[in-house]
C-alpha cells in the first residue's frame, strides 16, 4: 500500500474532462470504451486482485446490469436510464446467493465455478424468451441519438465513481481484511476475520460497479442480447485487463483497460481489414506473454521494468 503520487492522475483527469469535446465521434467512442472498461476492471480488481478471489464469471454482473436496464424498457416501458439503479441492484441481488455458495470453493475451483454460474445465466436468458426476449435481444432508442459526448461524461462519472469506491474501501478496515483473506485465509480466520462475510463485502461493490457499467452499455449501444453481454470473452477481458495492468494495485486495472482498448482499436484498424478478428488474437498473445514475463502486471512489476530500462542489475541488501 505505497504512497500514491496524485500529480499524474490529476493531469490525466483534467485531460479526460476537457479534451473530448474537441475530438471526433470515433475518438469519443474509443474514450467511452476506455472509461467503461476502467470501471469494470477496477470493480473486478476489488474482489479479484485485492481480495484474491478471481472470478471468471463477472460478465454475469455486466449482463444483469444491462438487462436490468433493458427489461425495464421491455416489460414496463420505463426509460432504461433508470437502469443505472435497477441494473446494479439486480446484479447485487443475484450475486449474494452466488457468493454464498461459490465462496465455499477456493483457488482454481472458485474461478471456474463462477464461469459455470455465468454460463448458466447466459443459457437462462437465451432460453427464457418470455422474460428476456431470448436471442433477439432488446433494442432501445438512444436518448441522445448519434451524439456521443453526453454518454462520455456519463461513463466518465461511472469510472470515477468506481475508482472512488475502491479507494475508500481499501483505506478502511475492509481493505485490510480483503488483503488478509487473500494473503492467508486461515491466518485471517484466526485473527477473527469472518472470511465468507468479507468476501461478500468485496463481491457486492464489485457486482454493483460492473452492473452499473452494464446498465450504461444498454443505454449507449442500444442493443443487447445474451451472447453479447454474457460470453466468456467479456469475463476474460475483465481479468486480462487487470492482469495486464497489475492485480491488487490501484491504478493497474485502469492502465490495463486503457491499453486494452487502445491496442484493440489500433490492431483492428491496421490488421482488421486483412484478417477479421486478429486483434483479439494478438491481444490474447500479448496477455500470455505478460503473464509469463510480468506476472504481477505492469504496475506490479514496475520496479523490475525500471531496472530493465536502466540496465542495472538488481542488488539485494538484506531484506530489500
Amino acid at each position, binding site marked *: 500500500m505505497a504512497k500514491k503520487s496524485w500529480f499524474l492522475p490529476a493531469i490525466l483527469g483534467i485531460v479526460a474532462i476537457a479534451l473530448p469535446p474537441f475530438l471526433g465521434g470515433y475518438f469519443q467512442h474509443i474514450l467511452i470504451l476506455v472509461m467503461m472498461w476502467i470501471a469494470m476492471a477496477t470493480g473486478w480488481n476489488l474482489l479479484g486482485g485485492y481480495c484474491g478471489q478471481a472470478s471468471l464469471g463477472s460478465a454475469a454482473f455486466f449482463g444483469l446490469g444491462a438487462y436490468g436496464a433493458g427489461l425495464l424498457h421491455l416489460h414496463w416501458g420505463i426509460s432504461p436510464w433508470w437502469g443505472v439503479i435497477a441494473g446494479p441492484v439486480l446484479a447485487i441481488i443475484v450475486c449474494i446467493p452466488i457468493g454464498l455458495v461459490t465462496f465455499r470453493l477456493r483457488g482454481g475451483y472458485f*474461478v471456474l465455478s463462477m464461469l459455470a454460474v455465468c454460463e*448458466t445465466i447466459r443459457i437462462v436468458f437465451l432460453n427464457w424468451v418470455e422474460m428476456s426476449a431470448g436471442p433477439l435481444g432488446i433494442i432501445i432508442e438512444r436518448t441522445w441519438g448519434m451524439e456521443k459526448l453526453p454518454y462520455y461524461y456519463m461513463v466518465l462519472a461511472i469510472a470515477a465513481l468506481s475508482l472512488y469506491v475502491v479507494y475508500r474501501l481499501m483505506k478502511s478496515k475492509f481493505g485490510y481484511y480483503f488483503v488478509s483473506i487473500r494473503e492467508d485465509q486461515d491466518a485471517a480466520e484466526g485473527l477473527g476475520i469472518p472470511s465468507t462475510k468479507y468476501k461478500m463485502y468485496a463481491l457486492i461493490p464489485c457486482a454493483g460497479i460492473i452492473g452499473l457499467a452494464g446498465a450504461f452499455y444498454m443505454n449507449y449501444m442500444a442493443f443487447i442480447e445474451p451472447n453479447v453481454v454474457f460470453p466468456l470473452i467479456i469475463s476474460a477481458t475483465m481479468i486480462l485487463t487487470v492482469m495486464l495492468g497489475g492485480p491488487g494495485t490501484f491504478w493497474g486495472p485502469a492502465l490495463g483497460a486503457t491499453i486494452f482498448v487502445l491496442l484493440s482499436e489500433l490492431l483492428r484498424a491496421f490488421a482488421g481489414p486483412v484478417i477479421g478478428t486478429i486483434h483479439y488474437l494478438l491481444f490474447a498473445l500479448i496477455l500470455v506473454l505478460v503473464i509469463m514475463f510480468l506476472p504481477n502486471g505492469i504496475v506490479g512489476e514496475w520496479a523490475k521494468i525500471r531496472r530493465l530500462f536502466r540496465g542495472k542489475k538488481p542488488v539485494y541488501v538484506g531484506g530489500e
Partner: protein
Amino acid sequence: MALFGQTIICGFLMGGVYAVIAIGMTLILGVMKIINIGHGHLMMVGMYVCFALFASLGLHPYIAMFVAMPCLFGIGYLLQRYSIQRVRFVDTILPQTQVLLTLAIGLVFVEIIRVIFKSDFRSVYTPFSSKCLYIGDMSISLPQLVSFGIAMAFVAGLHILLTRTDFGRSIRATAQDLDAAKYMGVDALRVSSLTFGLGMALAAAGGALLLPIFYLFPDIGTPFTIKALIITILGGAGSTVGALSGGLVFGMAESLGAVYWAPGYKDVVGFVIFLLVLLFMPGGLKTVIKR
C-alpha cells in the same frame, strides 16, 4: 418407458465420452494441482484438426483422432514445459495466476482457430452418422455407441498405463506427494509436461469422439471445460475412477434433464448437479461410496 430407457442409455454413452475429457482434466489437476481452464478450448483444437483432415482428405474422425491426439499431446507438452512452468512457482499477488495463464492460452487457440476457420458452424457427416440400433422400442445412436466403446478402450488403456508402467507410477507418485516423488528420483518437470500432454491428448480424443454428434464452432470449448470440472469435482479431484463414474452419472443426469425438462437447458442440469455436490458432498462421489 422406452423413452426413459433410451434417455438413460444415451446419457450413459455420452457420459463415457465426457469421462475421457474429464480424466484428462483430473490427471492434470492431480499432478500439477492446476485447473486447466483451457481444457475445453484445446479439445476444440483437436476437433478442428479432425475436421480439417475430414474436409481435405475425407478421413473419418475416428481415424483422424490418431493424428489429433499426438498433435495435442505435443502442443500440451510444449505449453507446459515452456509456458506454464515459468509461472508455476512464482509468488504473485494474485494467487491464481497459473490458472489464469491456462485461460489466456486457451483464448489464444480459440482466436487462432477463429482466424483460420471463421466462426461458422461446421459439421462432419459420416456414412453412419445417422444410423441407429434398435432394441425393442428404444433407438440408440450408432455413432454414440461406437464412441462409447472407443472411449472405454482409452480408459482401460489409461488404467494400464497408470498402474502397470513406470511412467504411470511416476504420475501417481507426483500427484500424491511432489517432494517425496522428487526424492525418489522422479523428474517432476518431465512428468508434469508429459501429463499435461496426456491430458490434452485425452481431451482431443474426447472431442474427436464427439465430432460426429455436435456442430463445431470455435467457442464450443467453454461448456465442456465446465462439464469436465463438474465431473472432476463429482468424482473427487485427481481420481480417474471418480472421473469415470462421475462422467457416467453426469451424462445420464444431463440426458434426463434434456428430455424431461427442456433441451435448451441441458447445460444448466450440469450446473444444478454442481451446486448440489458443492453444498452436500465437498469431497465428491468418493466420499459417498466409501460410506
